[in-house]
């Protein structure tokens, strides 16, 4: 949590240490509360809820609204935490989660991520983000002094909540039959049903409780920092780190993780000064996450999965050469007739398309969901800005992010996809605050000037260049997919256990793809910077990364055409903003969120669905692909095969 504490510099060292530790513990208590909610939802539904923070944020706003309407504090709090938030959780479970069933990690990630953006967009639409709001802490003005440390009643309440809530949860999960059944459902959903417990009810209960905990944390947090939708939603990333310490399952470890994180952040804020890093505390969650990932035992590889869905066919080299050529000719024609006023937007879109293209090998082929692709893009832009616009600058724009990507991939090599995604998220968050806001990186408040590469000062010529780079990269990605590396990558995405039994090392493949994808994103970022001529922190914001990722997945991250259309849509939708009045600003997130949420149905994205629709299949003799939307789950097929 990035809240400023006014470190009393003139106090004696012991008191300072004490004050910092206590502040840190209070913050850690909120992390612990957040993480407990995450763990409850994860252990009862098997789904990691990225929207957990967004639920807490929405609850905080709801609570604020109730107070504004004149409701007294206690009823408003109880109404929010015990009625509204659980209702939201139950609705989420009913509408989204229940349909996910055995969906792939990639899909569950994007669906909850879409939910995050959706809730954020709702909050920003209902409560205009530019209006500052203050959520009063509980028991305003009341405080006690314990051994030179001043504690407000609000802070005491946080500590009390952090002690009682996990204890109550623990008792509930161990002592009551419903609590035991919640754990039983995770163990064996079917057996729980055969014993007479209703897995659906229990899933709803899990989401209700999780949302309620998110609401408690959100309200307590909002009064400590500020009532801002984005801040509150993203601060929960600290809670993720705590949950990873507990392996997403152990409550005591999770709480310890939260407390340690809070104290470390507070101490770092008070004692550590690194000249080039103005916000030390923001990188601590990432460090903790990485350490937790490194010392954690490797997860068991999952075996016995049937192909969840059939990927769109990969075009042959002749066909992709042909379509690349056709694309270039067509694009050149279009570039020639675009009005000069629109050149900027179109170039921007083409650069975004290159960044999105970097998701195809990572997410589309390998099934590794990277949540910080724009961070790599930003590193590329910064690298080119520092080296210059010559050929060397372009090389630096690829190599620098590629190296960072490989480094980031290292700690997660032996872990499952979720942890990789969490690591990328923490990395993106840290870079967001520590790197792109850093004066020594960005030179000044106006941003970092980025040169046009290769001296392409003519706007039309530059657009043509960017489009050509996109086409060349797309061709390269497809060629990579047809190569040995590509096959290994798809095998890796399909079944790491299968790879292991074949004696195929997966680590090098993972590393190479991570570096490749990061380098590609960096190239796109550099070209984007060249178009804008100046880049700033907001260009590579983490939330924008998520939006882009979801956009790509919704349109089809397994196909080149999918990401290309996604880039077009990304450019076009904001153009509509002016016509939509107050909803305008959030319309992109709303649409993307809704799209991602709808992904449970067609998991190859829109383009994938179109490509595999029977009307478009030219070879009816081929077996029809088994789509996941068939009313039979993989599990049933598996057990049925034994019957």
């Amino acid at each position, binding site marked *: 949590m990035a809240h400023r504490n006014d470190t009393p510099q003139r106090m004696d060292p012991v008191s300072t240490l004490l004050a910092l530790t206590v502040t840190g513990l209070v913050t850690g208590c909120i992390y612990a509360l957040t993480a407990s909610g995450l763990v409850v939802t994860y252990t009862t539904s098997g789904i990691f809820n990225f929207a957990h923070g967004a639920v807490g944020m929405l609850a905080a706003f709801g609570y604020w609204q109730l107070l504004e309407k004149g409701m007294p504090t206690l009823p408003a709090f109880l109404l929010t935490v015990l009625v509204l938030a659980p209702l939201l959780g139950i609705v989420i479970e009913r509408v989204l989660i229940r349909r996910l069933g055995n969906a792939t990690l990639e899909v569950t990630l994007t669906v909850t991520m879409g939910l995050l953006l959706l809730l954020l967009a709702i909050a920003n639409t209902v409560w205009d983000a530019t209006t500052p709001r203050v959520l009063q802490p509980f028991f305003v003005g009341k405080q006690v002094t314990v051994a030179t440390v001043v504690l407000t009643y609000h802070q005491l309440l946080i500590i009390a909540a952090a002690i009682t809530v996990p204890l109550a949860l623990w008792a509930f999960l*161990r002592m009551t*039959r419903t609590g*035991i*059944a919640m*754990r*039983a459902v*995770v*163990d*064996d959903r*079917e*057996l*729980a*049903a*055969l*014993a*007479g*417990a*209703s*897995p659906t009810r229990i899933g709803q209960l899990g989401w209700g409780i999780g949302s309620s905990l998110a609401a408690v944390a959100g309200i307590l947090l909002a009064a400590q920092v500020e009532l801002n939708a984005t801040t509150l939603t993203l601060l929960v990333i600290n809670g993720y780190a705590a949950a990873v310490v507990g392996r997403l399952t152990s409550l005591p470890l999770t709480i310890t993780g939260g407390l340690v994180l809070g104290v470390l952040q507070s101490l770092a804020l008070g004692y550590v000064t690194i000249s080039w890093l103005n916000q030390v505390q923001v990188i601590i969650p990432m460090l903790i996450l990485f350490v937790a990932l490194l010392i954690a035992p490797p997860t068991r590889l999952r075996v016995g999965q049937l192909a969840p869905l059939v990927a769109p066919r990969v075009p042959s080299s002749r066909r992709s050469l042909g379509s690349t050529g056709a694309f270039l000719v067509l694009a050149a024609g279009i570039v020639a007739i675009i009005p000069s006023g629109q050149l900027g937007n179109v170039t921007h879109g083409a650069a975004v398309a290159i960044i999105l293209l970097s998701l195809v090998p990572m997410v589309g082929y390998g099934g590794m969901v990277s949540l910080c692709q724009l961070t790599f893009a930003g590193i590329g832009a910064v690298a080119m800005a520092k080296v210059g616009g010559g050929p060397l600058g372009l090389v630096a724009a690829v190599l620098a992010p590629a190296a960072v990507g490989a480094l980031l991939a290292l700690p997660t090599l032996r872990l499952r996809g979720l942890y990789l995604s969490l690591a990328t998220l923490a990395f993106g968050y840290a870079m967001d605050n520590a790197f792109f806001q850093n004066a020594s990186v960005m030179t000044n408040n106006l941003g970092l000037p980025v040169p046009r590469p290769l001296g392409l000062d003519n706007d039309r010529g530059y657009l043509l260049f960017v489009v050509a780079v996109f086409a060349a990269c797309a061709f390269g990605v497809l060629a990579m997919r047809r190569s040995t590396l590509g096959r290994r990558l798809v095998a890796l995405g399909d079944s790491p256990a299968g790879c292991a039994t074949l004696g195929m090392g997966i680590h090098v493949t993972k590393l190479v793809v991570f570096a490749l994808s990061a380098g590609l994103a960096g190239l796109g970022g550099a070209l984007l910077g060249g178009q804008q001529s100046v880049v700033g922190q907001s260009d590579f914001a983490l939330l924008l990364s998520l939006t882009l990722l979801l956009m790509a997945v919704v349109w089809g991250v397994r196909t080149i055409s999918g990401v290309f259309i996604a880039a077009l849509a990304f450019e076009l939708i904001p153009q509509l903003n002016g016509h939509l009045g107050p909803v305008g600003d959030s319309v992109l997130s709303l649409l993307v969120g809704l799209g991602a949420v709808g992904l449970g149905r067609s998991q190859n994205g829109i383009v994938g669905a179109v490509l595999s629709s029977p009307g478009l299949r030219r070879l009816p003799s081929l077996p029809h692909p*088994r789509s996941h939307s*068939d*009313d*039979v789950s993989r599990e*049933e*097929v598996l*057990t*049925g*095969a*034994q*019957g």
Partner: protein
Amino acid sequence: MTSVMTAALELRGVSAGYGRVAVLHDIDLAVPPYGVLALLGSNGAGKSTLLRVASGRTSPSSGQVLLRGTDVTGRSPERLSRTGLCSVPEGRAVFPNLTVTENLRMWTYRPGVSRKAVEEQAFARFPRLKERRKQLAGRLSGGEQQMLAMTRALTAEPDVLLLDEISMGLAPVVAAELFGLVRQIADDGTPVLLVEQFARTALEIADSVAVMAQGHIRVTGTPEEVRDQVLETYLHTDAQPTRLEN
């Protein structure tokens, strides 16, 4: 196999499958209100699918399922379980990450079954479980896990008990003990549908037998009547080799 009394569980014209794959074809099967009915058949004959339909885990594409004469087609597994159908699925039917006591607590969803009664019965019958009551079920031996699973059948006093390959992967001695227990449960008045791949042991404790192959019931009768035909059905109607008996 016609019985004057209402069958404990009856499948009428049931067809079922997964997606486009049909597994069961127009099955008629009645579990008599007493005794053990053994359902035999080789790998892939459709036995487990039949149990899935009977226990509500898979909906039949056509046909009816009747529990004590009441049509329960399409009822959810949890409702069926609370009404009195006890189904022990194949594999180890316990929750590995719950302790023994917590597992026993999960067996109390049937109305009228108290936590105390379950624990008393389970520990009286299997003293080993009492010693290990605070251990995770996943840490128990295969035999102990199966005993834990069977306590549900013992305490629930169900209208019908469905057992799916309970001997799978167990030492012969343990398997024999389990089959003895099944016989005893049946003698105490609970009708049992016992699904087995290993014909010999099942034939010893069964009162009646049905043999499945390729999604059809091929043969029904008493163990004596079908003994010779069982092997034949296994060999002639199924391309897959049967497993060796231990």
